[in-house]
């Protein structure tokens, strides 16, 4: 279980401290899928980075299964079971897809095991496994490889920062299948997905609405979702085309 207690985060804006997360409290139980939605600039991605340890909170606590992990770095948190899927995947000159998946898995995956992860994200594995994770891959391909690394990692708590960004409509269903298979295959695993896509909100157990650095509302899907339909916090799949 992940708990955020009175979590605050400030950034230095032209010499002045500007608080963008204000005393936030949130709890994500094991086996639950929580979607955090809300308007752009509301602090969603910052919150995701605070959980992964990429940013350090200015106040408050982060607890994982009761252990205070606030002072731990990215590596220690990863080793304790926190996974993170980037909104904008990183490119690496020279590092192959296979190597990246092996690092993620923490062991020498066989080529066919590695290929299975690529197949799960809808990539024809043999074409990709030996390619470099560099600029020759399209944004959509990179994003799917990013999700494959998270699959290979198999963390108990995975944070996805806008997983649908950069993914075409065809693979949207695929993405939802990936979330479902992670829940089934990783024991007691929980997930936090940052998204304002209606279809992703639809598979949530719980929804939290983050606005202006505060949790505006939180509850089970059926309670929170209806009020969000048609707002910026719950866009349909075509919204990006408009």
């Amino acid at each position: 279980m992940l708990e955020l207690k009175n979590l605050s985060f400030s950034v230095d804006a032209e010499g002045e401290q500007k608080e963008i997360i204000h005393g936030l409290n949130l709890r994500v139980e094991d086996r639950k899928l929580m979607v955090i939605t809300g308007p752009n600039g509301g602090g969603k991605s910052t919150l995701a980075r605070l959980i992964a340890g990429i940013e350090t909170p200015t106040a408050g606590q982060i607890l994982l299964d009761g252990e205070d992990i606030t002072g731990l770095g990215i590596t220690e948190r990863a080793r304790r079971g926190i996974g993170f899927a980037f909104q904008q995947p990183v490119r690496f000159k020279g590092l192959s897809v296979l190597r990246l998946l092996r690092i993620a898995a923490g062991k020498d995956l066989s080529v066919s095991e590695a290929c299975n992860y690529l197949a799960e994200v809808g990539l024809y594995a043999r074409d990709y496994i030996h390619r470099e994770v560099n600029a020759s891959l399209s944004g959509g391909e990179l994003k799917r490889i990013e999700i494959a690394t998270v699959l290979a990692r198999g963390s108990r708590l995975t944070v996805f920062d806008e997983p649908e960004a950069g993914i075409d409509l065809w693979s949207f269903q695929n993405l939802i299948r990936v979330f479902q298979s992670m829940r089934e295959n990783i024991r007691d695993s929980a997930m936090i997905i940052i998204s304002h896509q209606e279809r992703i909100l639809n598979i949530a157990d719980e929804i939290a609405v983050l606005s202006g650095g505060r949790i505006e509302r939180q509850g089970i899907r059926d309670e929170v979702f209806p009020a969000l339909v048609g707002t910026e916090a719950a866009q349909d799949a075509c919204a990006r085309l408009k």
Partner: protein
Amino acid sequence: MLELTEVQKRLIAEVADLHKVPMGAYNFRANGGLAGRNTTANIDIISKPDGSGIDIRIAPGTKNESVHIPVVLSESGLKETVYNDFYIGEGADVTIVAGCGIDNCGNQDSQHDGIHRFYVGKNAKVKYVEKHYGSGDGLGKRILNPVTEVYMEEGGSMEMEMAQIKGVDSTERTTLAELKKDARLVVRERLMTHGEQKALSVYKVVLQEEGGTADVVSRSVARDKSYQKFDACVIGNAKCKGHTECDSIIMDEGTILAVPSLEARHVDAELVHEAAIGKIAGEQLIKLMTLGLTEAEAEAEIIEGFLA
């Protein structure tokens, strides 16, 4: 037969990936003298009469054979200049593995300057692999100044892989190539410098005749206070294609100077150069750390991949 000390065997494993005597032709040079040689029906190795080096003659049509010519220096204060000439017959298809390892535990400089000349026959195909490596904790420097000259006949093809990853204090590499009609040259250089090392790499590739192609790519990492200069010039004298690229990671207090240049002397010469220098991106480190690596492990992984 081959008589090598343990240090020399270790150096040979580093520079030629050899753990035992190779198949095919070879010439092992250790501390300025011959340590072992083997020739085959198609590949002859002859010492130059004045003792300045060797001639390697590969018969026309020789297929799938290899030549290993590693050099090791394990005595401090040794300085040598060696001329090796390769004559690759028409239509041959061979792999040549060279490399130099220096172990200097003493206080005097050790230096090996190898001058390799390749005469690549018509339609011949050569894969050339060269590794440089240094070890030893003496105050004496480990110095390597290789000169490579490549003369390619019509339709010849040569791929050169050159790596210097560790332990060489000072190196000045000069590579000159002249290509005739439809000849093809590919160079992949990998370089890592650390400490106060200095590495200069100069290429001059002349595409003399129609249909020639050259692709010279260097990837390098400069750490600590080391200095690197990459100076690659491609000259097009006919309808041809040339590409040169230098891609570097800079770390610590390293210095990298990239000087790619192109000279077109024909309206149909298509020449391109690219050069990029930058540090390891913070996001790359963060991504690998979210996969459980420490920052140091992530950095090592990124460098290893980059130089692979």
